[in-house]
């Protein structure tokens, strides 16, 4: 097979993902601009010879993280670079990482789409309609906060009411009633399962009954 330049291979790669070349932007910048659905996608390519240039890698990453002109940005780098980079840096900035060599192109870290930075000129054109919209949004936000506070209060009252009749609850729905005692002190970094919101595979599962009898049937 003929070995194509990396720019061309990446173009095929993104076309296969369903992206379209962004002709407007490509004419102004590099050939690494695409449109993926509604999003714009930019890929910066580091070549093997770039790795020998001092600070080239860090400059490229910094430029991708600070001057985001596309919603989705990728850094394509020789596979060799993979051993020296910390994935956390890319994830923290939502930058995708593609590692390549002569034979393969691997998307090691998927990019997180963000809102592209709008050009300064559009910021200057804020008109009164926009200001009005912001004001009404602010009012809606305050209203929503008030509702949330009300809901929290209602929920607290309901929990107090239910904990005062544990006997009845335990007879009717033993495993769920039991769970509720835990929720009064949410302990985990992962969010606890809400009462009655057990995963779907628990619904009508006969094994819950079968397994809960383990040990007792043998006796």
């Amino acid at each position, binding site marked *: 097979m003929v070995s194509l330049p990396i720019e061309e291979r990446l173009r095929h790669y993104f076309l296969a993902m369903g992206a379209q070349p962004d002709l407007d932007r490509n004419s102004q910048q590099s050939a690494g601009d695409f449109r993926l659905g509604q999003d714009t996608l930019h890929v910066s390519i580091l070549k093997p010879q770039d790795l020998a240039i001092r600070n080239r890698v860090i400059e490229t990453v910094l430029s991708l993280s600070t001057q985001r002109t596309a919603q989705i940005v990728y850094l394509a780098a020789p596979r060799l670079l993979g051993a020296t980079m910390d994935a956390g840096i890319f994830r923290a900035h939502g930058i995708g990482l593609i590692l390549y060599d002569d034979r393969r192109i691997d998307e090691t870290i998927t990019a997180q789409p963000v809102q592209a930075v709008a050009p300064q000129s559009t910021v200057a054109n804020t008109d009164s309609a926009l200001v009005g919209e912001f004001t009404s949004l602010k009012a809606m936000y305050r209203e929503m906060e008030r509702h949330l506070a009300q809901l929290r209060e209602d929920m607290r009252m309901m929990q107090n009411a239910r904990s005062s009749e544990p006997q009845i609850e335990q007879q009717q729905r033993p495993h769920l009633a039991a769970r509720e005692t835990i929720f009064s002190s949410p302990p985990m970094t*992962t969010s606890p399962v809400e009462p009655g919101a057990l995963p779907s595979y628990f619904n009508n*599962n006969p094994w819950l009954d*079968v397994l809960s009898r383990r040990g007792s049937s043998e006796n």
Partner: protein
Amino acid sequence: MTVDTYRGNYTFAMDFGTSDFKFGPITCGENPRIVNNRGYFPDKKSVMYKAFESASDVIVGEDVPMYLQSAEDLSSRLVYPMRNGMIDKGDDQAWRVVSTLASFGLREFKPQPHNGFKGYYVVASLSSVSPRYMYERLMNIFRENNHGQVRAVTVIPQPFAVAIGHGVTTCVVIESGHGNSQVCPISKYPIRAAQVALNRGGGDANAITSEILKDSGYSDLANEEAVVRKVKENIGLVPTQLDYAMDEAKKSPRKYRAKYKVPGTRVEIDLDKDSWSRFLIGEYVFNPNHEIFESYFSRGMPRPKDVKMGDTIFKGMLDFGEAIVTSVERCPVELQPLLYREVLLSGGNFSWTVPPKLEDIAVDAPTKVRLLLRDQGIKNVSVKMTQSPQFSVWHGCIIYGFAVPDNYEWDWQRLEGWMKLSG
């Protein structure tokens, strides 16, 4: 039903699959975290490692690709411990990967301090053919690396977990992975004495795909495992009846033409007039006994052999219908009709689709198994794919950990119960 309230938040499941490691506590809900079931042993002598790394001996999880070096190193340094569902007793490298993955899984869901946490109830699941030493070794891993994170641990076989996750208490589960397949009848307990293991899995379908690629002039691609797997998944079909399917495809090669373009490359595979061979890929998984496969065996493709691993003999050439019948007939006669009533297929090796307009000649996995059972004289069978093939084992483990009473202690005879580690 009495349930330990504590386990409403602190049940943790780990599914050691052939390719993926699925893990997480009950609070994950429907979907666990997934990483590849593999570990990378970096070259500590390399300049790169010395210059930049202070990482551990074994790298697992999402960061593995960051450490990969040359392709030549992969075969020795990248270890998939459960590739065949079993790990040799003395394979320390593979056990180190399992140990690192288990610690990694628990570390990823470390609860906040001072919240009443006294350790997880961990349910790990292994292949049903895992010998006893694998249970012992896994238990030891949790015991030796326990820093108060595990209160009790248990290990259950994957087909048993599938049946639990699917909510069926009497059934036959067929789990087919990369290296082998297992037929396991369940009747409230796994019926271990009736298990049948096959030395055939997704890897064998890859092998015949590779031969087909060679025969069609794509020898350069036939050794690239990832490409071969993609070709298998995209052009392989399961025939209703192999002879009929081949005849039809030879008569109308355009209708059955098998073409596949590898994404991101210029490589396009077109079997053209040999497109009839796409039916061999699916047939070989379910039944490798057709005479046409002899020509591949005679040209060097390894015939699936009967092998003994641990205490289990893995049959090479048994078709799936015969395997199910053999397994069920080892159970009491009264139970047999109930077992045939529900046959569950689980594992990536059963993910076969039927392209539009080919419904008369190609079938999905449940239909093929039904046809093979019909050939064995078994009718009125219900064969289903598991509802969530990827996560059904993990779901089953969570339910098991949530429901089994805390005082049901581990027993080495029945291989069930809780092994208490702390608290």
